[in-house]
């Protein structure tokens, strides 16, 4: 297939997804969204509640997803969650801390925390709350570990693009006796976080986390659109397999 035909196929998929999302969001505007329960998110909500109650801090580690790469989506999903959590914990004494291993992501995390701080009673914004801790995988992890250990953190959320270094962060969180939720778009990191984090989000659950914490019609619509597209892909795979077996393809 030529690039032009591939482009048209891509356009078709994106157009279909966009129409589905907008249509479903319009349909769901008046009804409250209902999601299937994800135990990890339920525990996250409880942990965030404790952060506000006991005056500790929330730490969100956003990974190393560069904004000009496909990994940026997981970083943006992390920023969406950070924004909601910053607003949720705005009643607490201490603002959340965000660490990242990519410079542009660190700047966006500062902006996100600044927006979140406007919802707080104090309204104070600390520019050092959004941090770049390192530019290589292990320097990023090594830089984030002191934050987990020394800054009165009670809840750690690792969400974004990680590699195996996520295990070091989860281990540091475990040693500090804190709650850890891990989620990544990288398969290796997902396996590592499944073993080492207290709770792990697998696959596309990463992208649903923001919707679960602060659901709006468009979030519900995007999750439903994902489900519809998934069934379509399953159908295409099954039909393709049958056609292959029949010798037609």
């Amino acid at each position, binding site marked *: 297939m030529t690039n032009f035909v591939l482009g048209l196929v891509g356009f078709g998929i994106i157009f279909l997804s966009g129409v589905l999302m907008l249509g479903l969001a319009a349909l769901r505007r008046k009804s409250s969204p209902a999601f299937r329960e994800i135990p990890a998110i339920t525990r996250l909500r409880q942990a965030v509640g404790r952060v506000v109650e006991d005056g500790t801090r929330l730490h969100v580690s956003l990974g190393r997803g560069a904004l000009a790469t496909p990994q940026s989506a997981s970083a943006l999903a992390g920023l*969406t969650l950070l*924004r909601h959590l910053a607003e949720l914990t705005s009643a607490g004494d201490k603002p959340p801390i965000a660490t990242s291993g990519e410079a542009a992501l660190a700047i966006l995390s500062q902006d996100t925390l600044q927006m979140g701080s406007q919802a707080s009673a104090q309204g104070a914004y600390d520019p050092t709350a959004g941090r770049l801790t390192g530019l290589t995988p292990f320097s990023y992890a090594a830089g984030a570990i002191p934050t987990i250990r020394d800054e009165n953190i009670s809840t750690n959320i690792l969400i974004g693009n990680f590699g195996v270094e996520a295990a070091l962060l989860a281990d540091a969180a475990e040693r500090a006796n804190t709650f850890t939720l891990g989620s990544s778009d990288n398969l290796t990191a997902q*396996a590592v976080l499944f073993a080492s984090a207290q709770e792990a989000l697998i696959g596309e659950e990463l992208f649903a986390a923001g919707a679960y914490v602060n659901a709006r019609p468009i979030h519900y619509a*995007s999750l439903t659109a994902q489900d519809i597209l998934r069934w379509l892909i399953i159908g295409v795979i099954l039909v393709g397999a049958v056609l292959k077996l029949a010798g037609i393809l």
Partner: protein
Amino acid sequence: MKFKGITSTVIAISFGVLVLAGYIFGYNADGSLSLLGQFQLIILNIAVILAGFAVLVGIFNLLLVHTKKISQKQKGAGYSIVLIVTLVITFLLGLLAHYVPIAAALFNGAFQYIQLPIETSLMALLVVTLTYASIRLLRRRLNVLSVIFLVTAWVILVGTAPWPFLGDVPFFSDIVRPIIAQIPAAAGARGILIGVALGTLTTGLRILFGSDRPYGGKNG
């Protein structure tokens, strides 16, 4: 403030749509780069330059965080002093590397003989960390998934590792490991990747619609 939010939203959505259009209609039917494709390249090049400046801002932020730690005499302030001193030295060596040969040698040496061994040591540390995490997994989350995870990891390890005096383990190395790796593991991995791709698609669309705004401004 409101105007700033609207402006950033309009700029982000416009350039997002243009870059997306560049990916889809970036090529003409004859395979040559279209006008949209050329425009997309220019925008991405500008993004790369901005990302370079972002690194400088990030390093300034790193300095700020550690200076604050030192001035407030927080826990680990000693490490912050070491970090700032080495950062300044490495930065100066990097600046001088193009003009002074010894500075270039020292700059490369810092990476080759300090950073690389330290990062490799951290990688080695992962073996212990992951083994310990696997043991903890059953204590923390005893369910069917955890058991399947650990048994699969064990079987793959037995089938892959070169055992002393034995080499490959019969049955595990030639039958069980390939079956697990090529059928259920590959199928599961592809399923997860399809889910991630769909999540990426809808996240991107939410940002293009202006519903999620990680670049500032109130979420719509």
